[in-house]
């Protein structure tokens, strides 16, 4: 729709005015609520700040410290693994179940609710305890393996497997992505399927040529947000490891480390610098995502 041209200049002005009115709450929110703290944290990232006394300007020292901080590097590695394994896995599971639960099955509402239930628990204190019942040494997984005579490891306790259990915990809460996919599926106009059926397209072809393209904006959304959120995952890792990121830092997610620096050690200046490193990393990933989205995401609005 770039052909509006000068023919519409009065209309364009009207459009602009409407847009600014619609955007008014957001602008107010950005200025009053979001941008201030955001810039404050940017400022604090150049200071030594322990929350208990005024911040002291230290220039780039926090950023230099990040280069030397081996735990930070470890946390980045753990978080990257966590993100790049769990996000695709979770999206695949969520999409598959959304397709399965979309239509044509009895008891849809029931299944949908059951699958969404774990996501309702969120980061409740109970999650850590419950997760131990699944992945503990005497937990469900090992009881199941025991049926085949396999003695499973202590999934949570072993530094080699703890991250796996955390990834599965993330996948376990696929309910939110599933719900978004379901909503997206319902928004695909019926007439597209009818037209495809008239053209003699099989179910599989309908899926490939109607469902997938029409769902790409939502897949894209879930992917972008999945990456952003999993880089920020905190609560689950906190409740499972008791806040330590242990054993042996094997589940030290970036946000967990940031939190313990900020509130455990009262290194708020350093934590702010860490936050901005995270913003840069996630920002680059998101930009890459947007860049490549032009090749595969299909918008009905034609832009």
């Amino acid at each position: 729709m770039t052909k509006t041209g000068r023919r519409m200049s009065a209309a364009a002005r009207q459009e602009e005015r409407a847009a600014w009115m619609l955007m008014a709450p957001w602008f107010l929110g950005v200025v009053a609520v979001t941008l201030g703290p955001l810039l404050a944290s940017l400022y604090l990232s150049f200071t030594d700040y322990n929350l208990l006394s005024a911040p002291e300007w230290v220039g780039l020292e926090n950023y230099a410290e990040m280069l030397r901080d081996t735990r930070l590097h470890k946390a980045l590695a753990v978080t990257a693994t966590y993100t790049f394994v769990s996000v695709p896995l979770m999206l695949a599971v969520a999409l598959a179940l959304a397709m399965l639960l979309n239509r044509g099955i009895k008891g849809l509402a029931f299944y949908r609710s059951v699958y969404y239930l774990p996501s309702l628990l969120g980061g409740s204190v109970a999650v850590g305890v419950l997760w131990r019942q699944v992945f503990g040494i005497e937990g469900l997984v090992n009881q199941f393996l025991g049926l085949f005579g396999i003695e499973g490891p202590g999934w949570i306790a072993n530094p080699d497997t703890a991250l796996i259990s955390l990834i599965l915990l993330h996948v376990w809460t696929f309910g939110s992505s599933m719900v978004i996919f379901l909503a997206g599926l319902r928004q695909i106009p019926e007439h597209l399927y009818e037209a495809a059926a008239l053209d003699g397209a099989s179910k599989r072809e309908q899926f490939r040529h109607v469902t997938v393209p029409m769902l790409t904006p939502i897949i894209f959304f879930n992917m972008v947000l999945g990456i952003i959120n999993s880089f920020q995952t905190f609560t689950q890792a906190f409740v499972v490891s008791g806040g330590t990121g242990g054993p042996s830092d094997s589940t030290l997610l970036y946000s967990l480390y940031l939190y313990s620096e900020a509130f455990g050690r009262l290194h708020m200046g350093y934590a702010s610098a860490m936050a901005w490193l995270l913003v840069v990393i996630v920002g680059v990933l998101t930009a890459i995502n947007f860049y490549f989205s032009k090749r595969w995401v299909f918008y009905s609005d034609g832009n």
Partner: protein
Amino acid sequence: MKPLISRIGAATLASAMSVSLLAACSSGDDGDGVTLRYFWWGSDARHAYTQEILERFEELHPDINVEPEFTSWDDYWNKLSTSAAAQDLPDVMQVVDPLMYPYIENGQLLDLNTVADAAHLERYSESTLSLSTVDDGVYAVPGGVSGFSVAIAPEAFAEAGVEIPDESTWDWDDYIETAAAISAANPDMAGSDIPMFSQVATVWLRQHGENWWSPDGSDLAFTPETLAGYWDWVIRLRDSGGTPSVETMVEAHGAGSSAAQSLLALHKVAMNPALATNQLGELEETSGGAAQLMIYPGESDAQVTGSFVKPGLFYAASAATEHPEEAAMLLDFLNSAEAIELQKFDRGVPVDPAVVEAVSGDLTETELAVADYNARVTALGPEPLPIPNANAGGAMDELYDRINIDVLFDRLTPEEAAQQFYDGLKAEL
């Protein structure tokens, strides 16, 4: 720094981050009375009786109104530091070492010498105040003495046919042998937990005449060699067959220090080498059997006593409180016989012997056992613990936890671990 922030814009923030006089007055006067905010951590039982204590205080002082604020340990410190950042600390708060030192160092806590009469500082002995005294200022009063102990399940010993060792003579090898004997006699139970926290190492170092910190907290006062010796002992314990698997231990450790989830409460081990004594009641309740507190091994051979008791928590007042006298009165009341009647030993054994005496009539056997353990430790004449370093103190637990697990999984030898720990802690000073 101020012009810079304002340059950044964000008018809301600019005024907020700079020191402001406005913020501290949320606990202002209401009417002619005085309102105090008191903030503590604990579980539901503690929240309930503490509010009763505050009601009694208000009855005694009708002109003072106390607003309770409470949360759990996990949330307490981030909430406290956030309110400190907004110059909005509660008037009275519960604190503990080592996390309280940054607050002291940064002038957030009131020097109680300025209100010594209202706080009745004379009730506290020098040794119970040693951890909260910094540069002659007294910044907190102890809420109760607590400590760590070897807790054992006598029933499990009887079942395994193993004799309970004599606490006045046993040494560290006896500990391993006892643990191994129980494991050997009972296939469903291991002898002892592997210690996961640093307390047992504290005892070990002290028995060798060392400490984590030098007396003024400015430096480390232990040698990597001694610490390596401790981890060596841990490895021998692990390899004796007298403990659950390392994975079981790490899993139980990750569940937190709640006594209800401890392996001793679950009847999976017969000895726990680091039970916080104020949790004895919960332990007995959930395990359904009595437990016995024992002095640490090795005391009879050691030149210096390793076992220790110390205040398990403290009460402090905010330096910015508008009502220091009233705050001090509340601090004092929290340690009064009237308060302890309701509180019992949940916050540790009261430091004032007169108060213990006053409530001794209605103490349970469990509470008497804790008081008795404290008395036995005190009889050994332990030196008070040095004050942890204000910077490195907060880093120690995390570092210890990580390196200890590396040792248990054979990722580090005791020597490497001790050196790494020493260097890591030194770097934080």
